[in-house]
């Protein structure tokens, strides 16, 4: 199926205004694994005929890794440039596939004048299901499968979103199994705070290995995440235990696409 990915500039040229902007993010644009998640979300948006657009080549890093690394200058430069673009298109609502973009746009842009309603893709999908635009009734794909959800720190503790991704997993008719550390007590995958872009400091273990052990202990067949960076970390962790043939690491959006056979 060919994806329909309108850009804001195309929409504007046609004199249309999309209801929501899909902020793809750097990982979602460039990382091969994360691009699949991006496409999964677009499939859902296309299927539900959601009026959306992306910024395309006008999108730029939100500045999140710069801010976490302590470089407020680079962060604010990025933020101000992005706000100019967003306000130029009169954007009101934004959905992101990345909790880091989500947190930054939602919480750190308002003080620089960028005020938008920002939601995470799991919240949007939940809404599409609740309003009847997306149906999963009778789907057998994940029926009875053990799925655990790894809480991304910037979705969970940072913004108190714990229920939307879990509600979606339950819609799959799957068995949601929790890791011993979950929700407010969830253990980080090790990528946050700009760690993704550097070697870990000296220690006796990698954080993603510690977290993968939690996941293995839960006996889940699928580790669901809602963050491209968590996805990378957990995938690497699973490979480290040579379990890549037994356990899949998938984004919640991918689970939905597979279950709805989009």
């Amino acid at each position, binding site marked *: 199926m060919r994806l329909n990915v309108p*850009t804001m500039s195309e929409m504007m040229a046609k004199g249309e205004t999309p209801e929501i902007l899909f902020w*793809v993010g*750097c990982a*979602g*644009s*460039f990382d091969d694994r994360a*691009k699949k998640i991006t496409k999964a979300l677009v499939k859902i948006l296309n299927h539900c005929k959601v009026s959306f657009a*992306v910024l395309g*080549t006008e*999108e*730029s*890093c939100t500045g999140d*890794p*710069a*801010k*976490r*690394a*302590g*470089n*407020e*200058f*680079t962060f*604010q*430069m990025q933020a*101000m440039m992005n706000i100019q673009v967003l306000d130029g298109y009169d954007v009101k609502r934004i959905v992101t596939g990345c909790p880091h973009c989500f*947190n930054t746009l*939602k*919480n*750190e842009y308002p*003080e*620089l004048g960028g005020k938008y309603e920002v939601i995470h893709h799991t919240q949007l999908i939940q809404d599409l299901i609740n309003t009847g635009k997306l149906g999963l009734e009778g789907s057998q794909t994940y029926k009875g499968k053990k799925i655990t959800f790894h809480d991304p*720190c*910037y979705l969970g*503790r*940072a*913004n108190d979103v714990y229920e939307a991704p879990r509600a979606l997993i339950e819609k799959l008719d799957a068995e949601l199994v929790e890791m011993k550390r979950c929700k407010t*007590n*969830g*253990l*980080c995958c*090790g*990528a*946050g*705070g*700009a*760690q*993704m*872009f*550097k*070697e*870990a*400091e*000296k*220690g006796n*273990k*990698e*954080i993603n*290995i*510690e*977290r993968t052990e939690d996941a293995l202990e839960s006996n889940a067949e699928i580790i669901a995440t809602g963050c491209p960076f968590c996805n990378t970390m957990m995938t690497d962790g699973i490979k480290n235990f040579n379990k890549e043939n037994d356990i899949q690491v998938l984004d919640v959006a991918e689970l939905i696409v597979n279950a709805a056979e989009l």
Partner: protein
Amino acid sequence: MLSIVVFISLFFFSTGLFLLNANKIRKNIRLGREVNRSDKPLTRLKTMVWVALGQKKMFNRPIAAFLHLALYVAFVITQIELLEIIADGITGNHRMFYFSLGDFYVFMVSFIEILSVLAFVATIAFLWRRNMLSLPRFNKNELLGWPKKDANLILIMELVLIVFILTMNGTDEVLYNRGGSHVAYAKGSFGFSISAWLGPLVFDSFNVETLRVFERIGWWGHICMVFLFLNYLPYSKHLHVLLAFPTTYFSNLQAKGKFSHMKSVENEVKLMLDPNAIPLESDAPPSRFGAKDVSDLTWKNLLDAYSCTECGRCTDVCPANNTGKLLSPRKIMMDTRDRLVEVGELKKGEVDNKSLLGDYISPEELWACTSCNACVEACPINIDPLAIIIDLRRNLVMEESAMPSELAGMLTNIENNGAPWQFSQSDRLNWANEE
């Protein structure tokens, strides 16, 4: 008469000394930068009532929470008896409220005695846990030496205090049984829940004279321990019994993922992007970006440091610490307090060429943080170690340009091509046409 003079002198000396030290702490906290935490007073009050008074977050670990609750309630309720002790001490009376309060007095003291016994058990359990069980969080590097002694000292002081209370009530009970109490020379029993049977059990073999001496030792011992405790607080991690209240009241009420906004940087960036921009109301640029020393942190960070009781729940859940990295959020708080005390001792205008960053906290600790907020979530009184970590990182990056080389590369990429990796911005939509 002599005892009244001694008591009043002791009373004024110890409260005076405490106020002096409390004022020092207040001054030290005010060395911090301004941050506005005066909005939403009702939400703040609610947070304080639930988290500090109600100890809501303690109950994430129910056994420890119950033991802690026993100590806490005993501590608070015993203050009622303290009122009588102070009144007795000043007037030279004995159990002043016994006759005026009647049954209620018996009820109150009985209640205090039961709580004291519970607190005694809890204290023994805590001593055992801290010294006999090898719980990782009580045996981390930052706890070795003084912090461990401090913790044990407080627990021992609590035991001694309880022993004094029960000695006082127990001996008085036996005296009353024999018609020798100062309260009433008739024979009788106070009917207090614990000392009514524990007193005769322990003290029945002593004569009246000895019992009177023991009773006085119990009374003076109790009040002296209270004065001692009060003046030990400013030097101890135990300050949390008082500061947990303001610390929770001034909690960060915003989303935990929101890092503080730097207004000073905003001005500079606005001028960079538009040379004609009018600078915001702000004055001269700050002397420093980020925090190098305690005075660069906010007053709330400093209040947090004084309020930390070093329980280590933060470090226990820290992913970096869990995997053997140098970072311990508890150590961040302890270092901040230690450095603040050191700065507070400096004379006006004096500098010691030391700083929190470097002399206390190393870059390696700071770079181990994943900013996951687990420490903030775990703190029973909403202390925020992450805010300090980030402010110190800001100083490393923006003032010293000192950061892991991969991060320098990542920042250059963001500045050059709008992504943390070396991909061109013009390729951002390529995914839409790939199979």
